[in-house]
């Protein structure tokens, strides 16, 4: 009996320790970053002086990156998922695609950066632009979206589709009018999770050659850009410790964004489950 109690406590502390670390991390961030937070921080450009620096271009850059990446990745992701779920379940091509999706999910994100560097920056001549960065992130989001969309499509009962056919509808109409609308909450949840993964990605953008110091707001697809995680990385890696406060404040903004995205995903999932 005693052994069981000890073992139980060992297991429980293994579970609680990482949560304690998470709390320490949050406490450290608030301690170091709260002094810098404020409207000025969000609306200022980066600066050589730590106490004047802000995240405005990085924030705008992150928002634009995510908007473009989402616009590219979601249609492609849904398309591939529908193909895999509804059209090709057993042929060689489908198996190849399946293998690839899981393969893509296992590639370290820094390697996506190398692909983006060669493919978008050099071969397609996009330079280190917003578009190149967004396309690279879109590649990263694809496997997550495809997997989530397939799960969402699977939850739509077969009988709905059969009811469509009974009414004389074609497969195309059944998919567009019935299956996709019903799977929509699941698709949205998966997409939001993909966005919240991509918004924190730093390595692929750095490898792509995203600038770490930008004092203007990107004004087009071909503009140079920076993003929130890159700005944070830039501040943490500086030798002057005053910039660590800016980094902490930037991290708080990033984590708040992630929190909002995740709450949105949970909200959608709950609404979905209730139906």
């Amino acid at each position, binding site marked *: 009996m005693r052994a069981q109690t000890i073992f*139980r406590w060992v297991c429980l502390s293994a579970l609680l320790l990482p949560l304690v670390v998470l709390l320490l991390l949050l406490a450290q961030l608030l301690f170091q970053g709260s002094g810098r937070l404020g409207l000025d921080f969000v609306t200022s450009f980066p600066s050589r002086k730590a106490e004047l620096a802000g995240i405005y271009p990085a924030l705008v850059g992150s928002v634009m990156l995510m908007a473009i990446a989402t616009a590219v990745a979601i249609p492609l*992701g849904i398309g591939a998922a529908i193909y895999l779920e509804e059209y090709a379940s057993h042929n060689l091509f489908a198996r190849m695609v399946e293998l690839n999706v899981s393969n893509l999910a296992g590639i*370290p994100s820094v*390697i996506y950066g190398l692909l983006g560097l060669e493919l978008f920056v050099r071969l397609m001549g996009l330079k280190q632009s917003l578009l190149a960065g967004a396309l690279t992130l879109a590649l990263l989001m694809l496997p997550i979206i495809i997997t989530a969309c397939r799960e969402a499509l699977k939850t739509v009962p077969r009988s709905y589709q059969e009811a469509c056919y009974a009414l004389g509808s074609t497969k195309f109409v059944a998919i567009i009018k019935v299956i996709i609308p019903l799977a929509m909450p699941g698709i949205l949840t998966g997409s939001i999770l993909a966005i919240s993964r991509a918004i924190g990605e730093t*390595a692929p953008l750095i490898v792509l050659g995203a600038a770490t110091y930008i004092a203007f707001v990107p004004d087009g697809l071909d503009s140079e850009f920076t993003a929130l*995680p890159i700005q944070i990385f830039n501040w943490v890696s500086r030798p002057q410790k005053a910039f660590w406060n800016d980094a*902490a404040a930037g991290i708080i903004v990033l984590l708040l964004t992630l929190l909002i995205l995740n709450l949105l995903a949970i909200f959608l999932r709950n609404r979905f489950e209730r139906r």
Partner: protein
Amino acid sequence: MFHCHKKLCCENFFLAFLMASALISVGITLGVLVVLFTETFIFFEQVSWRDFLFDTKWTPLFASKHFGIWPLLAGTFLTSAIAMAVALPFGILAAVYLSEFATSKTRRILKPLLEILSGVPTVVYGYFALVFLTPLLQQFVPGLSGFNALSPGLIMGMMIIPLVCSLSEDALYAVPMHLREAAYALGAGKVTTICRVVIPAAYSGIKASVVLAISRAIGETMIVTLAAGQQPQLTLDPRVPIETMTAYIVQVSMGDTPRGTIEYQSIFVVGATLFAITFIINYLLGAKRRTS
């Protein structure tokens, strides 16, 4: 008749779009392979395999260039090993708690809380390792440098715990109840049942989580870039600055290296090595892959 024709055209277009989307995912993988191997091929026209495999120095950015991959491999191995030493015991024990001890209510609260950990961007963990953990550890560990393998390794382990925990818990939870009951019927206690029956029965699922955790640790970039330093050294001392494969790729990318130089090609060689290692781990060890 015309209406029918239009509809058919629309459907064909739709199917073509679906196939194209599916094809793009195949194209990306091919793209990765082509990009990595083209540059790697050019690299090995200038540097011999022998130097790459047997030289013990990695100094492509210095005047006297050496291209021995071992220092980068050692750095990657060291941080990953430390991360595993944290993530595997903690992750599996946490999974045992959730699956075997926790009530369904605590499980519903604790599991999502734990999963927050894996949603935190790695640049944040890098900040934490460099700004918080390293100074803290320096008070206990004599001779710990400002950049070292220990602190990013530990933090990386923390980051990976939810992955190990979540997958292992699925495996433990799936072990049929009658196996446990059979063990109790034979007079085994709960600890014996868990250690001798439940964990062995869930072995393949737990193994898959371990494999995935290792490949995540090897590919992790920002924590080691920020906190482990940028000095490729052939050492297994966790207290000194080292450099991992991923950190090297980032380091070179930061300083605008022109295409066609050996420095530029070297990041693709390191990328190809990284890809090959994660590929071998994922496929030969047969992990069940998961995207999120």
